[in-house]
């Protein structure tokens, strides 16, 4: 009897809370997603808040995957309105969105980010192919004597891999596994240099990723924490060291650092924007159209982000290090912000 009463009370409390929920309207835009896009999106959000009558949007840095998961959880003001991503939405994520009622989504490709390998200007510059880079940093690499067999990485010096490389021990500092930069570095640089090797050619995709994206743990690759400043300081003090970080950091320290060429390409803003540089990725944000008009200011935010003030040749996003798309792509973006076209699954395939 007593138990029944207790259960009834709990049920009642629950349903009261559930009923009261839809009444909680929200007038601040809620944005989640990639930590790579976060520094750019926060600047846009702050400008947007300062220059319009809308409140400043709220931003959470949840990572691209985490952001899309939250974004696709449903329609309603308890779910975010916009998510940032440092990669494109996957078809599976699109399906998740659809099955939760998030039908209409607009995609904005806001620019690019490149990952560079750099060293002090006084050091010997590195000119490597992605394959050589994988051989230098992979945990297991093909045996030099038998290319189908994988062995623990035997290379000590860069010149052991190829005599054209510097005769110096392999020592590379890079971001920890929690970092999006590390994910992209693994995916674009290491896997890019490894997937065509005969030793992994017959593997399943998962096994291949396991081999290609594992970095050696014998001290040649040094995890530096999320602090890119620290990597820069180390590189300047130690000419035998190479460091991995985002392009914007190279640009900030252009007077002290030089970038290695990858597959013969020097990282430049133009090369990264045109996807010519091999370790470049695009940055996106996605807008939930069902919330436009419900939460005030969403479309205006998209217009601010894609406007000339932000992304133009003298825009403020350029000064925080975003590699902005070329002019014609920018015009397309602005039109998108005007019309908000729907994203289709075919586009993502």
């Amino acid at each position, binding site marked *: 009897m007593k138990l029944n009463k207790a259960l009834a009370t709990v049920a009642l409390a*629950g349903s009261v*809370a*559930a009923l009261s*929920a*839809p009444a*909680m309207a*929200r007038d*601040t835009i*809620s944005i*989640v997603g990639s930590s790579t896009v*976060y*520094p750019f999106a*926060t*600047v846009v*959000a*702050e400008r947007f*808040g*300062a*220059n319009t009558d809308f*409140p*400043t949007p*709220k*931003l*959470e*840095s949840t990572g691209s995957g985490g952001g899309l998961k939250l974004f696709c*959880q449903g329609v*309603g*003001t*308890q779910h*975010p309105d916009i998510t940032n991503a440092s990669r494109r939405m996957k078809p599976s994520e699109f399906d998740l969105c659809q099955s939760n009622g998030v039908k209409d989504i607009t995609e904005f490709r806001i620019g690019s980010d490149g990952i560079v390998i750099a060293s002090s200007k006084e050091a010997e510059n590195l000119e490597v192919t992605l394959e050589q880079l994988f051989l230098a940093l992979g945990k297991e690499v093909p045996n030099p004597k038998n290319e189908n067999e994988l062995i623990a990485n035997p290379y000590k010096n860069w010149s052991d891999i190829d005599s054209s490389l510097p005769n110096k021990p392999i020592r590379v500092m890079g971001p920890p596994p929690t970092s999006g930069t590390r994910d992209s570095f693994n995916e674009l640089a290491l896997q890019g240099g490894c997937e065509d090797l005969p030793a992994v050619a017959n593997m399943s995709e998962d096994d291949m990723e396991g081999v290609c994206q594992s970095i050696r743990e014998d001290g040649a690759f040094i995890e530096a924490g*999320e602090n*890119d*400043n620290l990597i820069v300081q180390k590189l300047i003090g130690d000419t035998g060291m190479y460091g991995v970080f985002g392009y914007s*950091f190279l640009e900030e*320290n252009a007077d002290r650092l030089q970038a290695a060429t990858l597959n013969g390409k020097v990282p430049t803003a133009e090369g990264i924007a045109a996807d010519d540089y091999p370790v470049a990725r695009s940055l996106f944000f996605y807008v939930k159209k069902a919330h436009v008009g419900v939460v005030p200011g969403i479309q205006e935010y998209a217009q601010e982000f894609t406007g000339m003030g932000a992304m133009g040749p003298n825009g*403020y996003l350029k000064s*925080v290090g975003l590699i902005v798309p070329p002019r014609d792509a920018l015009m397309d973006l602005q039109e998108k912000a005007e019309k908000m076209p729907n994203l289709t699954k075919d586009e993502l395939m």
Partner: protein
Amino acid sequence: MTDQRSQAELVRQSLKRRYRKERRFRAYGIAAIAIALSALVILFADIIGKGHTAFIKTTVTLEVDIDGEAMYLDDASDERQMKMADFVEPLIRALMKEIPEAGESDRDDVRDLINPYASNQLRDALRENPELLNTTQTMTFLSHTDVDVYVKHAGDASYSIKLNEKQRGWVDALYERGVVDTGFNDVFFSRGDSRDPSRAGILGAIVGSLLTMVVTLALSFPIGVAAAIYLEEFAPQNKLTDFIEVNINNLAAVPSIIFGLLGLAVFINLFGMPRSVPVVGGLVLTLMTLPTIIISSRAAIKSVPPSIREAAEGIGASKMQVVLHHVLPLAMPGMLTGSIIGMAQALGETAPLLLIGMVAFIVDVPDGFFDSATVLPVQVFLWAGSPELAFIERASAAIMVLLTFLIGMNALAIWLRKRLERRW
């Protein structure tokens, strides 16, 4: 006889060794305290050394000629014109006047001396007072963060100065003449977060922390005390209450991130409450602090001597009167101390808030329990991870503010205990 003497001999012989042992033991103790203290001193020295400069702001005071023609503005009360007006131009002109050696080609370098949001300040001044148009006003603006870093940290190897040679010369000259000046950083205490370090403040985080703590205290103290009183005074001793007791003790040791997961699943996903709001943060921290409060409250109730209960019962008080009139007032100091320590713990917590969206970039200072907010330790975390060097000193300054609050709360707990405690 011989036996006795040899025993005294033995004692005497061992005496030296025993004294040595004691001295060694004392030395260990002193060393342990020295290690703990030096860790504390290093921590404080590091934080204060890094953070004290965050309490200084750099300003630029200019004679601004608010020239309508240069701004494409002839009526400052017309919103449409205000939207299209150029508020940067008068600032550049005012700066150029102060720097006679700067030519037309240096305009960009000159503009980068002043905060990018200075034009907003001019706009807001005009919006508030349209008559200012076409007058000359003396206005004080924040400097650009690069100037701020240069003025405060020139010559410090751990900061990289981003100004070019020309700009450094200008700033040196302006600083000498008092146009560029430093003062107490009131911005730091009166604003929310910002991506521009010189405009970033902790008021948003302080208010967010206070709102969250109010929710936590309002829920966890009455619930915790009621649970403790019931368990201690009324509940029968059986398997069920034993089970509950074990569980409460276990909950106190559960890592706080678990409470965050619970909050996400229950409050946000099931009840549909909004993300990043102090109410949800307070609810989650309530779950976290409850065990601490229940345990300390039970201990406080247990320490009330049974003679007091018996005396009250002896003159005919009911069970409830005994508890409310006699036990509770006597146990209150202990309960309060436990609650304050629980609250201090909750104030420093970030992990559970990560999952419910309170680790976020929030510029506006929250003005209610359902407004997006962040809290002090989260603000430290966000600034410490920012690439801009100027945020590092602000992170340390925020730590100082957080520590001040924590020390204050602990001091309050000690004071309450000293003041209200009774001994029998």
